[in-house]
């Protein structure tokens, strides 16, 4: 019979934080080994770089987390990052004030995501295909905007990209890193602290149930894609800050890195379980691997892809093991 004890015992076994713990463990192991192997790795600066260098990946991955939590997937993010970045850069060269250019980019990104969400929801099309179309479209459009990388010379931009929050030992957290952490904090709040976030988990957990529970399923789904589009556009802005330019060829394959980070961060690809906080850890794992490779300086860079593939496999298998006993049979 249901009792206090039942709730407690079960909580230990199927603790939802277990995947997050596992991911954090992997990060700790990776970081420690890299620190032991490579002198100069264990510094504040390297850690802050991790946040700054992976900011646009991280922000895309947070957006992707929402879509994946809702039970979908979005392959268009890398192309949207490139499109918005190129758009902003070329608008700036034409004298548009940075604020307006960014607002326009954010609006376009959200609308584009929302439109894909609409097609997916209303016509019950596979998210995978619709967003694939979106990826082709956005990538092509960024080359329509400009065939080559556009430099940004706006003085405000220079100041912004040089800005850093001093932390310790002369190291400072760049603006891109600050934005990333801000998005993570916001993402965690939205996912865990708002009705929309909870609805998202419900939708990803069981769409039919969510509908019968009277939740606005369509709205939530479309909003998840729109939010992801917004994050991609924001990542595009961060990319222009990071590089001081807008490059239509950038972010090629970024969607895969983002999905990999989300999965490594413990979010279930079937939707309904996971957290943006895990995604932060996933992105840090990704970044640590990449930085360690640079520090080593001898290994072929393609080891990164293999390592990411293996980590993906590891975490997916882990998820299977963890989720199997929890999935009580439902009639």
């Amino acid at each position: 019979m249901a009792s206090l004890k039942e709730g407690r015992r079960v909580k230990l076994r199927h603790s939802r934080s277990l995947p997050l713990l596992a991911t954090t463990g992997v990060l700790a192991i990776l970081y420690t080994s890299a620190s032991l192997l490579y002198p100069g790795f264990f510094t504040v600066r390297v850690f802050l770089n991790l946040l700054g260098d992976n900011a646009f990946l991280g922000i895309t991955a947070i957006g992707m987390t929402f879509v994946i939590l809702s039970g979908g997937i979005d392959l268009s993010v890398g192309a949207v990052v490139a499109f918005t970045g190129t758009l902003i850069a070329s608008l700036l060269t034409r004298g548009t004030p940075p604020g307006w250019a960014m607002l326009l980019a954010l609006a376009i990104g959200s609308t584009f995501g929302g439109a894909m969400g609409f097609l997916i929801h209303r016509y019950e099309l596979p998210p995978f295909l619709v967003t694939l179309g979106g990826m082709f479209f956005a990538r092509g459009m960024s080359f329509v905007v400009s065939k080559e990388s556009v430099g940004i010379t706006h003085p405000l931009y220079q100041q912004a990209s040089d800005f850093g929050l001093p932390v310790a030992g002369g190291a400072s957290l760049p603006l891109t890193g600050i934005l990333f952490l801000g998005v993570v904090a916001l993402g965690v709040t939205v996912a865990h602290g708002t009705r929309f976030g909870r609805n998202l988990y419900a939708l990803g957990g069981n769409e039919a149930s969510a509908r019968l529970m009277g939740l606005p399923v369509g709205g939530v789904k479309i909003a998840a894609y729109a939010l992801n589009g917004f994050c991609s556009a924001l990542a595009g802005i961060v990319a222009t800050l990071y590089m001081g330019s807008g490059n239509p060829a950038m972010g090629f394959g970024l969607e895969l890195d983002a999905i990999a980070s989300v999965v490594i961060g413990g979010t279930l690809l079937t939707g309904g379980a996971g957290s943006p906080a895990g995604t932060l850890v996933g992105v840090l794992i990704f970044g640590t691997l990449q930085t360690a490779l640079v520090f080593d300086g001898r290994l072929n860079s393609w080891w990164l892809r293999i390592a990411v593939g293996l980590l993906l496999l590891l975490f997916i298998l882990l998820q299977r093991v963890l989720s199997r006993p929890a999935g009580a049979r439902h009639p």
Partner: protein
Amino acid sequence: PAARAAARTKPLTVGFAQVGAESAWRTAETESIKGEASKRGITLKFSDAQGKQENQIKAVRGFIAQGVDAIILAPVVETGWEPVLRDAKRARIPVVLVDRGIKVSDDSLFATLIASDFIAEGRMAAEWLSRKLNGKGNIVELQGTPGAAPAIDRKKGFEAGIASAPGLKIIASQSGDFRRATGKEVMEALLKKHGTEIQAVYAHNDDMAIGAIQAIEESGRKPGSEVVVVSIDGVRGAFESMVAGKLNCTVECNPLLGPLAYDAVEKAVAGEKLPRKTVVPDRVYEQSTARASIGSRQY
């Protein structure tokens, strides 16, 4: 410089942010820089960006965090380097650019640029072609990756070069992305469209030219005689094609930048002032000289 290097207690550590391994030319450059480092006892940190600027920037920032003595950067595109180079400058790490230039508002962001003059290469190809065709003919141009500096400059130089010969006309110009496969596909389409009008092909690199040669052969025409093919880079494959009589001419773009790069690095580390740009001299190879020099080619 060798004496100074020996005088240092610690060998130099240099980071090299390479674009990737997309062509034979690129791997020759990598090998040159790697080989020269071990010859000089320099610790080289090598990073392959898989063709992505964002990866290159991350690599450079990694080098800075690691505290290398100098950085060699082969920039994948011209713009977008200011923030990271300002970082390097703040950390007082000299950056030596190789093989293509960048656009920055502040020239002190890098120590020097060691590169071929892409415009001159294009012009040399044009001049050679103009002589070969006696100043008259229809040319198809296979451009490099859109937006890449060599593509822009090789186009610019070539156009300037044929300007003096009004009989030479570029009847089609499309991007083959510096790749064999794309070069071949694009050439196939152009051959269908223009057929026998085409008298010459100008490719921005050898790989595309080799792809185009295959396409021309498949169309039943003879590359090297019926269709004149000229390209840039001078990799081994190009020499082999010239020996086989299929490629007419290649303008060498020397990838063996290792020695020059480390000379510059050592000077920069020692605080010497370097010229803004060191132009690597390039020369034209044609079929008549190819057989003689193919044996001595290192790449």
